[in-house]
């Protein structure tokens, strides 16, 4: 059904389809009514004509009988019988062998004399008179001749065939003109209806192109509202995305401009001889490193956003991801001689392996960065009571209360890092339906380290 619709009844234009479908149907109906009416009226006219011809034939037979022979005076035969005004009837009287006896010579003698009904009843056939198609009625009679010898004669009465075709005037009488007017009115009405529907579709389209229009309008037809709200949702999403990107780009450019300004100052002061090159060059190296770190983090954030857009979460083994992160960062662990431990429990959580890997690497790199040489860092996986947790802990100096509110803001740098790290972590966690929080670990009144907790499920 659907395929059939798609292939045969494909509506390239709704307007065109509706016009053809509705008006076409109406035209077909109107023509059918006309045809049926014309057929009915035609039948009626034909039987009327046949009756007239039969009547005329009868009248003529009587006249012949009264006058006592077929050799009638011409005027009597030429006399148009009063059979209804303008209707013209011509006659011919012939012998059985077709020999003309009286009346119109132009009318051919009846070719079917032998098959004419007996007892003087009339037979009907189609003949012609000087090229005109005629309806002819013929009858065979036994007529007394003037000299007393009776003979068989054939009497024909003919009227034009065209009288049987109903004319416009005749059809109009049948009420068809009213039907025609009604059909025209209906066509106008239907076209108007189509125009109105198209107006509403167009109005919906305008609503969409109007950027100020944010809610589904009450003046939009019910059927179009799902389309409208879907498109509007997409537009809003896009707008939100663009805004976010724009804000981020502005922040990022600002952040990248700062080290450039620093670099320029350092360079100029060295060129001017204000500071010794040997002093300023290491500082410049540090500035370049800072800018590079920032660019790198911007890059990974962008990559992550792409990932977050297309990734589908699956329940994965968090242990494997944590182990991979440790394998990758092991040179850092070796470099600081860090005592590392992974306390793993079986832990499965909805996540994307790549994104979770990035998250764990970020947290672990942070922990290693903040841990003192020969200090301890570890990862703990634990689950229970509908909650799954991944904890990256270190023995670093802890988070100052002043830092805490800005910890997860993009570019909120802490201790030399460019600051995007934790912002990335939070974004990843949220994309996976998890939360990430940092807590100071306190022992006997003093901060002994930091726990970075990634948690799926309800807070305890």
């Amino acid at each position, binding site marked *: 059904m659907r395929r059939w619709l798609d292939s045969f009844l494909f509506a390239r234009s709704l307007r065109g389809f509706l016009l053809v479908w509705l008006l076409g149907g109406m035209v077909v109906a109107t023509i059918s009514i006309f045809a049926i009416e014309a057929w009915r009226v035609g039948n009626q006219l034909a039987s009327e004509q046949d009756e007239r011809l039969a009547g005329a034939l009868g009248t003529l037979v009587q006249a012949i009988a009264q006058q006592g022979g077929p050799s009638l005076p011409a005027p009597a035969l030429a006399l148009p019988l009063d059979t209804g005004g303008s209707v013209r009837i011509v006659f011919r009287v012939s012998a059985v062998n077709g020999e003309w006896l009286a009346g119109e010579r132009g009318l051919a003698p009846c070719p079917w004399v032998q098959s004419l009904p007996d007892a003087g009843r009339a037979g009907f056939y189609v003949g012609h008179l000087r090229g005109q198609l005629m309806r002819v009625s013929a009858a065979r009679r036994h007529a007394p001749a003037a000299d007393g010898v009776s003979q068989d004669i054939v009497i024909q009465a003919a009227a034009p065939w065209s009288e049987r075709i109903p004319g416009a005037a005749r059809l109009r009488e049948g009420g068809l003109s009213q039907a025609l007017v009604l059909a025209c009115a209906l066509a106008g009405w239907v076209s108007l209806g189509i125009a109105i529907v198209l107006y509403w579709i167009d109005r919906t389209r305008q609503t969409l192109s109007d950027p100020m229009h944010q809610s589904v309008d009450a003046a939009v037809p019910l059927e179009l509202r799902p389309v409208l709200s879907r498109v509007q949702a997409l537009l809003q999403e896009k707008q939100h995305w663009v805004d976010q990107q724009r804000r981020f780009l502005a922040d990022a450019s600002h952040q990248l401009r700062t080290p450039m300004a620093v670099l320029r100052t350092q360079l100029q002061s060295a060129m001017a001889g204000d500071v010794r090159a040997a002093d300023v060059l290491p500082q410049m190296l540090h500035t370049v490193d800072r800018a590079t770190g920032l660019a790198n983090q911007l890059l990974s954030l962008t990559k992550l956003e792409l990932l977050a857009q297309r990734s589908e979460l699956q329940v994965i083994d968090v242990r494997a991801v944590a*182990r991979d992160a440790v394998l*990758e960062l*092991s*040179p850092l662990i070796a470099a600081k001689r860090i005592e590392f431990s*992974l306390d793993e429990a079986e832990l499965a959580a909805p996540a994307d392996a790549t994104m979770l890997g990035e998250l764990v690497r970020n947290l672990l790199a942070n922990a290693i960065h903040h841990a003192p040489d020969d200090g301890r860092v570890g990862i703990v996986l634990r689950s229970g009571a509908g909650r799954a947790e991944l904890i990256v802990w270190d023995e670093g100096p802890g988070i100052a209360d002043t830092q805490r509110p800005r910890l997860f803001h993009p570019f909120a740098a802490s201790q030399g890092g460019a600051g995007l790290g934790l912002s990335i972590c939070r974004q990843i966690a949220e994309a996976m339906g998890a939360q990430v929080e940092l807590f100071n670990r306190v022992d006997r009144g003093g901060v002994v380290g930091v726990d970075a907790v990634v948690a799926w499920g309800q807070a305890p």
Partner: protein
Amino acid sequence: MLRGTMHRMKLLLVEDDFDLSAALGQTLLQRGYDVMRCADGHEALGLLRKRPYDLVVLDLSLPGLDGIDVLQRLRDDGNRTPVLVLTARGAVGERIQGLNAGADDYLAKPFDLDELIARLQALTRRLGRDGDLRCGLVRHEALSGAFYVQAIPLELSPREGDLLKALMSAVDRVVPKEALTSAVFAGGEAVQADAIEVLVHRLRRKLVGTKAEIMTLRGVGYLLRDDAVGPAAHRASR
């Protein structure tokens, strides 16, 4: 650092960025390397097939033949020249791919020059042209399979030897416990859960004073740390 040693190390630098290649080449020349520069994968492979080099610094994104392909074809030829791969930063997949294709070390761009030099030195020390493995003062002779601390043979049981060799092929990188178990105990043997731990404990005692130290990453595996390298090679690479 290498100036004045018995021979200048022949180094092939494959890098398509002209500025970086020029600056790096100049620095390496100053540090005593005999540097040959090239900017194309096919050309690099041709050069490496023509004459032996002591070291290759290979950028992964190259015109012509990709760095990974160069590495793979080189290793397929049976060429064991130590290769340090330069990767775009953050391209974790590329890094792993590089190591799988037979790179001996990797460094993310942009890198610290001192770190590059330190890593190159560590590479040549660890994997000389002789194919020997080195870490700290320990050397594993490829030919005889024997271990030496400087010139003194290190007495190890066969299993201790297998363990140390596995760790020495991945200096400064953690080797998962399962990988060590399968390297030391041939398949089918019934292995006690703490067998590796006991072995590591014994080996660790024998390595005291060799500047090669086994670190435990509890729950993950073990790592052989090279204490002889300068701090630059241990500088955070991230």
